[in-house]
């Protein structure tokens, strides 16, 4: 058919008109780092496993956690959950209860007996792990999965480290530790208990690599003068007795004082209460706001009736009397000074919980290992010490001391060790930008309070913390904003004035750059900040 006058195109739909040429900015889907993931010391992909939990895919969620952390059920009980402090939902209507979801998923895994796939490969390399605490066990787990042959030496009768001989049972029952450690053993890891390695040099030549996670086991000294000190017990001794010889504690005192302000002090105080003490007082030198103990721990302790005597130090212990110095604390400059006033109290027992340091004699004779002034082992970014092939992590290296940090160190070290043993070297991962709150469009979220569950007052050694039901897990996980990651809400697709977002039947979304004019509506209306506008190159 002849074309009408002055017409060059065929009659057609406008689909052939590539309006994409108008664009100066282009939308791109991103996977930004949610704040929760960014702050997790173990590097868990929290946002991803929450999205699976929301969909009721608990097994898949568990598998994602297990990629970065072999202890979901333990984590859900003891992790200090820095994720929740940075959770963007905290700026809206309360952080997602990540910790409780992790606990609940960890428990489902144990109740259902989920096991790990067998390791089929073998590197033929032998790695020794000294210390069967969370750090050592996690390193064994990551290394075994890579096909290495692992032997763990543990001084105590049972593995678990401070999770067993520190954290009290009402927070973390033994059966949970046993069950999560068993999964690691089932990978073929050999755990040799009751075997203290006195010196690193004794074993260093028997293995292809060594990972040291022996923790900080030595009680720190305090300035207190102890004249007659039969009532004094160190917190770590208390916990160890409780674990191995509880009968020794049958006649524990009624009037108990605890000295210190960290988590150990709180645990010791709550333990004393459970051993039958009638009054438990914590003595701490600064103000309550400065206590290093975790907030929830402090509030739980107060709820159980424990008193905190702030701005005091113990000058002298003399039999059943203690002499306290009252202190002044200058918040601004952090200066602590005596007021000159004193106080005398009657006590039955006093528990010292002023911290632990590490036993450096272990490293005697290996001069390449650097020990910092405050007694920590220096390591490089692969967690290798000054001695080649010797790696270290957990409480003995500088930084925060926690179970989660110990697991994070172990993960990093396992990669380093694998590389050292000739495994493929990791391509350094470029960390994505953090998806901060201002990148979200929260108009699309309804205010929805966090699913809290009551923690009944229970002064026995039975576990206190309840679990979520399956519905509660999904409900609470559905509060996640999915920061920086597409959650397939179709807002971009539905709001594009140019039909320039393509949606496939499986829900996947892509930009059709032939038609996209670059208006930016998709990015503005994306609830989770998963689309970024970038300038078009010439």
């Amino acid at each position, binding site marked *: 058919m002849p074309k009408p006058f002055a017409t060059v195109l065929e009659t057609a739909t406008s689909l052939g008109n590539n309006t994409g040429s108008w664009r100066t900015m282009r939308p791109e889907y991103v996977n930004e780092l949610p704040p929760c993931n960014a702050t997790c010391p173990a590097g868990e992909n929290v946002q991803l496993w929450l999205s699976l939990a929301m969909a009721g895919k608990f097994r898949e969620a568990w598998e994602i956690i297990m990629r970065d952390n072999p202890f979901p059920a333990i984590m859900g009980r003891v992790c200090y959950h820095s994720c929740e402090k940075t959770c963007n939902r905290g700026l809206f209507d309360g952080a997602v209860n990540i910790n409780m979801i992790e606990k609940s998923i960890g428990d489902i895994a144990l109740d259902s007996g989920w096991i790990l796939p067998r390791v089929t490969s073998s590197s033929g390399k032998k790695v020794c792990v000294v210390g069967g605490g969370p750090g050592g066990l996690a390193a064994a787990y990551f290394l075994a999965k890579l096909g290495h042959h692992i032997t763990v030496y543990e001084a105590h009768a049972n593995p678990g480290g401070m999770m067993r001989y520190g954290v009290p049972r009402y927070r973390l029952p033994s059966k949970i530790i046993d069950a999560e450690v068993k999964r690691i053993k089932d990978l073929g890891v050999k755990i040799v208990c009751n075997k203290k390695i006195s010196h690193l040099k004794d074993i260093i030549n028997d293995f292809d690599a060594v990972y040291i996670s022996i923790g900080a086991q030595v009680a720190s000294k305090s300035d207190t003068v102890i004249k007659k000190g039969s009532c004094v017990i160190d917190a770590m001794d208390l916990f160890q007795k409780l674990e191995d010889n509880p009968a020794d504690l049958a006649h524990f005192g009624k009037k108990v004082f605890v000295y210190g302000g960290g988590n150990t002090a709180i645990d010791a105080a709550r333990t004393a209460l459970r051993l039958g003490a009638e009054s438990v007082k914590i003595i701490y030198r600064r103000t309550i706001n400065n206590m290093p103990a975790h907030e929830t721990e402090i509030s739980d302790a107060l709820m159980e009736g424990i008193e905190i005597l702030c701005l005091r130090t113990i000058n002298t212990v003399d039999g059943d009397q203690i002499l306290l110095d009252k202190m002044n604390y200058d918040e601004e400059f952090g200066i602590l000074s005596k007021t000159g006033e004193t106080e005398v109290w009657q006590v039955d027992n006093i528990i010292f919980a002023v911290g632990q340091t590490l036993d450096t004699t272990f490293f005697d004779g290996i001069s390449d290992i650097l020990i910092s002034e405050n007694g920590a082992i220096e390591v490089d970014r692969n967690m290798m010490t000054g001695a080649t092939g010797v790696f270290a992590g957990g409480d003995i290296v500088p930084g925060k001391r926690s179970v989660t940090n110990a697991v994070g160190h172990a993960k990093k070290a396992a990669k380093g060790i694998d590389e050292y043993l000739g495994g493929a070297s990791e391509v350094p991962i470029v960390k994505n930008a953090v998806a901060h709150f201002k990148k979200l469009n929260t108009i699309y979220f309804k205010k929805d309070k966090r699913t809290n569950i009551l923690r009944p007052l229970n002064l026995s050694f039975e576990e206190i913390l309840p679990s979520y039901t399956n519905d509660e897990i999904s409900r609470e996980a559905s509060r996640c904003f999915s920061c920086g990651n597409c959650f397939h809400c179709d807002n971009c*697709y539905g709001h594009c004035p140019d039909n320039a977002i393509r949606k496939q039947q499986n829900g996947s979304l892509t930009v059709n750059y032939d038609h996209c004019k670059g208006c930016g509506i998709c990015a503005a209306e994306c609830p989770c900040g998963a689309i970024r506008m970038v300038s078009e190159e010439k």
Partner: protein
Amino acid sequence: MSNFPLGNIGGTPTVQSDFARPNSLTGGHRGCQGCGEALGARCAIDAAHQTTGGKILVVNATGCLEVFSCCFPENSWSVPWLHSLFGNAPAVATGVAAALRSRGQDSIRVIAQGGDGATYDIGMGCLSGMFDRNDDVLYICYDNQAYMNTGVQRSGATPPLARTATTLPNKSYLGSDPQTGKNLPEIAMAHGIPYVATASIGNIRDLEQKVSRAINIRGSRYIQIHVPCPLGWGYPTAETIRIARLAVQCGLYPLFEGEYGKLVGSTPVEEPIPVESYLRPQRRFAHLFGKNVSANAVGVLQNIANGNMEKYRLNWEILDA
């Protein structure tokens, strides 16, 4: 206002989230970047398409929507579509509906659509006649509050104190006179037709529900959709949906439904915001925030919003207090 995303996160999925949505208005059209009218039209016609199984026919008045979607010899409509003149879309649609009825094909639903200029002003006579006869047509007005296609001239839908090419503010004049303008949804209601509704592209779920409802009612129906225009109103193209949402949240664009002349419902505004939050981001209101402007200018618009809150019962908490 919490407004669930369009897919199945939180709310029921919308037609616009369906991977197989009709795309009545296809890509490649020449609407501006961030055009609210293009989006509004696709949402409305897709919803009608989905509800009737594709048995629709669209008559379009002259205006941006028509011009950017049919640059001869290309066309962006994937539904039967017809264009005649600027002012006669209601009359043409009436004729189409009558023709279909006489051929026993009145299961095919007729839609007439146009901009606010076509609807409020030049086509007003034809539209009123269509309502008067209760012809079986759904009329959809895409309200971008001025004659955009010819360069942003004032229409009867232009809000008080807005700057347009024909209401340029100066020292003694603050933009479109508050004494002028009309309320077409109310005029439509006054005709006693079976269904009248207002909608917004800031709330697509609500918009779709109204179109789906209206399309199968017999007789004259009128839906007016608020469709912000980045070019004419002067705001960044990415903000089209946000601006639409703010208009609803501040009460200046009440979303309501009426049947046979009576108000039957309205979409609640849970957390009303001051009109200033809506006006400030738009250059057409920038002169209201200049140095020597009395605060009263914004007050005029705030009063209108407050009046809407009460008249359309947009916020029960405020009303009950």
